[in-house]
Structures are given as structure tokens and as C-alpha cells.
């Protein structure tokens, strides 16, 4: 009798648990890197289980996908990518995972910029790595574009989970409002700067959308090759450009090593004015653990450096 009673309790608890699990089964979402992972978390909230492949402070351009990533993709309901050839590792990873998930390209519908040189350079371990692509992939660096990413994410979630759609749409609208506030804030900050102090230097040309949206001009070494002679020539060209434009600040970047920048700073007589977050968020302890925090941080350190005199 006692066994029987125990069974009723235990068995019904089990039934309840599995029914509950079936209803609350979260939408499995894979985001390729931390920034769109943050957008996905804002839109998906409690309804999604999220994995971002390329983590904080990591460079997606040189990412080497792991077996665990392929397994996550295999189990995903929705896969969120930037597109514009940003995630060079994804085509093969999708193929090897055999995923059936919807692959959403979040830059769909965005007005993209061409890459003038057919790509841009990254600096890792003291080496320049050319990232080829016809279009500049760093579209998230303008807040207006971030809103388009968020709309695309909501649409992808709604397509995969119709029941949760109202929640996703409410979340997306709420977050879009926060993005509007952010956008106005950055504009306000830049407006306070003297008109002739709008030029800064970065290592990796990731801020062209920011430039067009907010009017801060970014210089970066172009076409630096790993051949040391060519590198010297190109740095010299950049130094000249820095002098001509009166560039007033030079920034490190969270995903690049600072060797090249330190050399440029020394030659141009500038000191590093802080760290910008370009292609990845910071960890939770850092100054840019979310997109909102990242954009505020970037705009803040740029404005502080340009306002310094």
C-alpha cells in the first residue's frame, strides 16, 4: 500500500514534469558571436536556450569552430548569423552539423557598404590577416542597423515558434526603444565635440558604419602585409594621414593585439586613449558586456579622448 501511494506521488510527479518540459521546451538558438547573441537574449528572453559560438573578446574572423559548436548547431531550431561573409567558418560548420535549423542572416535588408579594397585587415599575434569580402560586415556599429538585426531576429523566432511570437514582438519593441535612446545619446555626445576634432585611429577598419551614422572619422592601416617592408611603408602612409587630418586619439581594440597600434602611436606621437569594442562584447566583468553598454562605452571613450584638450 505504501509502495502504491509512493508510486502515485512519484509517477504523477514524473508525468507532470515531462508535460511541463514539453510545454516549456525552450527554442534552441545558436548565435554566431557575442553581439548578436546579446540581441537574441533581449528578444528571446526566457523562451530561448542560447549558445553564442564566438565568445567575448574573440575575433570571429579567425575563429576555429569546435565539435561542440557543430553539435549545438545540429540541435538548433534557429541559427542567427551576421552574413556578409563575416563568419567565414559557418558554411562548413553548417555542412558538418547537418543542421535542419532555419539560418537567419541578420543583415538582410540593411543598406550595406562596399569594402573599398575587397576586404579588411585584422591583427593577431603580430600578424596581419586579410579578411576578404565584398561588403563591410560590421553593420552593427550603427544603432539603426542594430534595430534591423533585432527585427530580423524577432521574425526568425516567430517563424520557428509561433506560440511565442507575441512575446518576441513585445521584447523586440521594448529593446528597439532602448536602441532609440542609445542612438540619440551617441548623437548628443558627438555634437558636443569641437568640429575639427572628429578623427581617431584604430587598428582594424571596423567602424565605417559608426562613421557614417555619427560623424566620427576613423583612420586605420590599410593593406598592411606581413612582409615587413610593406608594413613599414603602409604605417608611414598612415602616420602621414594622421598628421594631415589632425587625428587626435588612437584606440586599442578588444579583439586585436596592440603591438601594431603601439608602434603607430609611438611614431605619431600619440598615446593609446583606451579600448574600443568592435566585433565582440567584453566579458561580464568588462565595460561592454551588452550591446547597449558596448556602444555607450565606445562613444564615451571616443568623446572623452577628443574632448581632452
Amino acid at each position, binding site marked *: 500500500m505504501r509502495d502504491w501511494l509512493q508510486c502515485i506521488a512519484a509517477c504523477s510527479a514524473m508525468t507532470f514534469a515531462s508535460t511541463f518540459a514539453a510545454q516549456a521546451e525552450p527554442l534552441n538558438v545558436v548565435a554566431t558571436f557575442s553581439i548578436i547573441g546579446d540581441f537574441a537574449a533581449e528578444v528571446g528572453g526566457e523562451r530561448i536556450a542560447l549558445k553564442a559560438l564566438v565568445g567575448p573578446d574573440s575575433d570571429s574572423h579567425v575563429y*576555429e569552430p569546435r565539435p561542440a559548436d*557543430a553539435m549545438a548547431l545540429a540541435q538548433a531550431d534557429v541559427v542567427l548569423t551576421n552574413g556578409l561573409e563575416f563568419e567565414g567558418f559557418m558554411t562548413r560548420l553548417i555542412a*558538418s552539423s547537418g543542421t535542419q535549423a532555419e539560418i537567419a542572416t541578420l543583415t538582410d*535588408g540593411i543598406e*550595406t557598404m562596399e569594402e573599398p579594397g575587397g576586404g579588411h585587415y585584422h591583427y593577431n*599575434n603580430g600578424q596581419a590577416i586579410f579578411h576578404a569580402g*565584398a561588403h563591410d560586415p560590421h553593420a552593427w556599429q550603427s544603432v539603426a542597423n542594430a534595430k534591423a538585426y533585432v527585427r530580423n531576429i524577432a521574425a526568425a523566432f516567430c517563424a520557428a515558434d509561433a506560440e511565442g511570437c507575441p512575446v518576441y514582438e513585445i521584447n523586440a519593441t521594448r529593446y528597439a526603444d532602448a536602441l532609440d535612446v542609445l542612438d540619440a545619446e551617441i548623437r548628443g555626445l558627438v555634437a558636443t565635440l569641437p568640429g575639427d576634432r572628429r578623427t581617431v585611429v584604430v587598428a582594424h577598419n571596423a567602424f565605417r558604419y559608426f562613421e557614417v551614422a555619427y560623424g566620427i572619422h576613423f583612420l586605420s592601416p590599410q593593406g598592411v602585409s606581413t612582409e615587413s617592408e610593406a608594413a613599414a611603408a603602409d604605417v608611414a602612409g598612415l602616420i602621414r594621414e594622421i598628421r594631415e587630418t589632425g587625428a587626435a586619439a588612437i584606440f586599442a581594440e578588444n579583439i586585436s593585439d596592440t603591438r601594431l597600434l603601439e608602434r603607430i602611436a609611438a611614431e605619431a606621437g600619440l598615446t593609446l586613449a583606451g579600448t574600443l569594442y568592435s566585433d565582440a562584447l567584453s566579458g561580464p566583468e568588462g565595460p561592454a558586456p551588452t550591446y547597449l553598454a558596448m556602444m555607450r562605452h565606445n562613444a564615451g571613450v571616443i568623446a572623452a579622448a577628443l574632448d581632452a584638450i
Partner: protein
Amino acid sequence: MYRQLAGATAMAMVLAGTAFAQEHDHDHEDVTLYRVFVGDHAAPRVTVVDLEAHDHEEEGHDHADESWTFETTGQVKLFGVAGGAVVAAVQSDDDAVHFFTSGISFHDHGDHADIEVSDPAAINTVLTGPRPFHLVDHGGSVIINYDQGGYAEIIDAHHLSHGEVEITRLPQSEPHHGFVARLGDHWLTTVGTPAPAEGKEAAPRPGLQEVTIAGEAVGDLATCTAIHGEAFSGAYLAAGCREGVLTATAGADGVVFDMLEYPADLPQGVTTGTILGATGVQVFLGNYGPNGLVVIDPADAPHFRYIELPFRRVDFVLDPANPAHGYVLTEDGSLHRLNLLQAAITGSAKVTEPYSMDGHWNDPRPRIAMAGDDILMTDPDAGLLRVISAETLEEEDTIALEGTPYNLAVVGGSGMTH
């Protein structure tokens, strides 16, 4: 100021998605061509055959569309190198290395690649030296270790792709059966031990050492007892040892070594000595005893996952087109598909008569290689090259070859011609 600067950036606004899809819609042809280099077990000879896309209407035809034959000094082990532009024929027992231009080259144009096809040809320069053995092609260098020479020869891969064989010699402290590999800006060499006294057994190779190109040690030796076999995947080099698998990566401040020890739940008393590296996903497949394989994840735990095979292993390959898949032939004549993510056999089919693993390692037994969606297998006893579908594991075609077809290398792929 801003207006002026924005003008200066001369940005071009285009709509995403229009891309280049249409740019090549006219006057081009998609070409898929795989070219197979097959070495004979007995005769000093390499036969080259082209595999055109299969026409299933006329299945069973036993001829290649075109073929070429080249003389060598001895039995060859074949490697497609320099992006498939060249095939190297290493002849360990005959102290020679021949090179052939494959006749297939690709020119990357971002959204598509152009393929150019011409006849394969022997490169005039033939390397000679005492017992060339392991060949490593990575990071723009093709490197051959001379096991009895106490040195390795480094060839620039780009020059080699144009048929030029220029050599830099990297000296080692002792001649040994090992390898030299390039990892970013770093050179790594296995380390041998001095020749033992008469009647004594040589001590096992102690490990892997970073060296300058002049052979001078940089930093400490990374212990990897009896080191053998090397492969690259993602950011990692991996090599097998008695105690585990040694990995090396190029960090900001030099080479970072890590010893992944064999876990207690793997069969004991056997080791990894042959490793293949996947492209697309950072993972390795290594042998582990005569009837086992291990999937090696260099970054995430568990680092080893064991796959037990029903029979002893004859040969195994990874699928570059589908990095989750590998294929292994066992001595009963069965070909098995492996899923590296699941660390499991997901399909098997009988593809040839049995080939016992009893006897010498270099006895004539089948060798397998990938050619796009097909697995190619030499069948030495049958005098055949078998073409097997990777998807169904069913034979699609056979190509009769003279003599005893043995080692093979495949180059080629898909591209456009204009």
C-alpha cells in the same frame, strides 16, 4: 567638417543580397574534376587517371577518361601538396622524392573559383637523400624529413606550385624517424636519440622541440615519448605519444604545448601514432590500437572519444567536404562511415575481399582517399581503383589499373571555366 570627411570616404551604398550571383551567369561552365595519382606496389611507377562526373547510364565501364604514366625510382607514398597543384612521391626505400605538377589549379575570386586544367607533368628536380619519410604540408611550407640524414628539407609551397623546387635544409641533432612542421612563424622538430650501443635498443624519441631554421633549440623540449604522426586542424598541431596526444598552438608569446593524456576509460596499453586533422571543424581522428580510433578534441573536454572497430583497421580518411565524417576500411573488406561528432560508426558496407592485417605493414593492402562525394579505394589484389559513393557506400565505378595499385593521392575539385 563631417560633410567633407564623409565625402572623402567615398563610400558606395549597395543593397545587400544583390551580390554577385548573376555576374557569371553567361559564358561560363561549372567543372568538377578529380585527378587520381596511384603508385604501384612493386613497379617504380605512378599512374594518373581523371575521374569525370559519373554518368550512371553507363555504369561499370572500366576505363578512365584519360590516363598518364610516370616512372619513379621505387615504390611511392603520394601526397597532394601546395593546394593540390603538385603531387609529391616520397620513396623511403629508394632515397628519392619526385614531384608532379597535377595540372589542376584554382584561382580564387571570392565568390567563385576558376579551375584550370592541363596535363600532369613530372617536375625535373628530384630530391635524393637518406630515407625521406614523413612529409608535412602546412603554413606555406612542404617539409620532408630524412630519417637517416639528420635533417629535413623545406620547400616553399608557392614556388613549388609553379614547379620550382628550392630547398632550405633544417638540421636536427640526431637522425630519426620523425617530422618537421611549421606553425605560424615557428619551426618544430621531433627529437631523436643517439644511436644505441651494439645490441642495445634505441631509446624512444623524447618529444617535440621548437627550433630556429638553423636547428638551434628555442625554449624547452615538450615531452612526447616515442612521438609519431602529426596533423593540423584549426589552430592546433597534434602528435601521438606514449602518454597521450601532444598539441601545439602559436600563441602571442611563442608556441604553447599541451599534453592531453589518454584517459583511464580508454583501452590501456595502446597509443595513437597516426593522426588526421579535419578541415572546417577543429578536431582530429587518430588510430588507437589495431582495432580502434579516437576522436580528439584539442580544446574541449572530453579530449578523447573512442570508436571501437569490428575488425582491425586497414586505412582511414577524413572527408574534407563534410568535416563531421570519416571513413575507415577494416580487414574484413568493409568500409565504415564514422560520425566524428557522435564518435560512432553510422554505416558499413562490404566493398572488397578481405585483406588480413597479419604480416608486414607495407604488404599490398587497399588505401582510401576522398574525391568529392566519392571514396576512392585501391584494390591491389584485384588490380582496380574502386569508386564508392560516400553517401550510400555502394560501388559506382571501377577503373582497371596495371600491376598492383597501392598508395594514392587525389587532387581537384570544382570550379568555373570562362
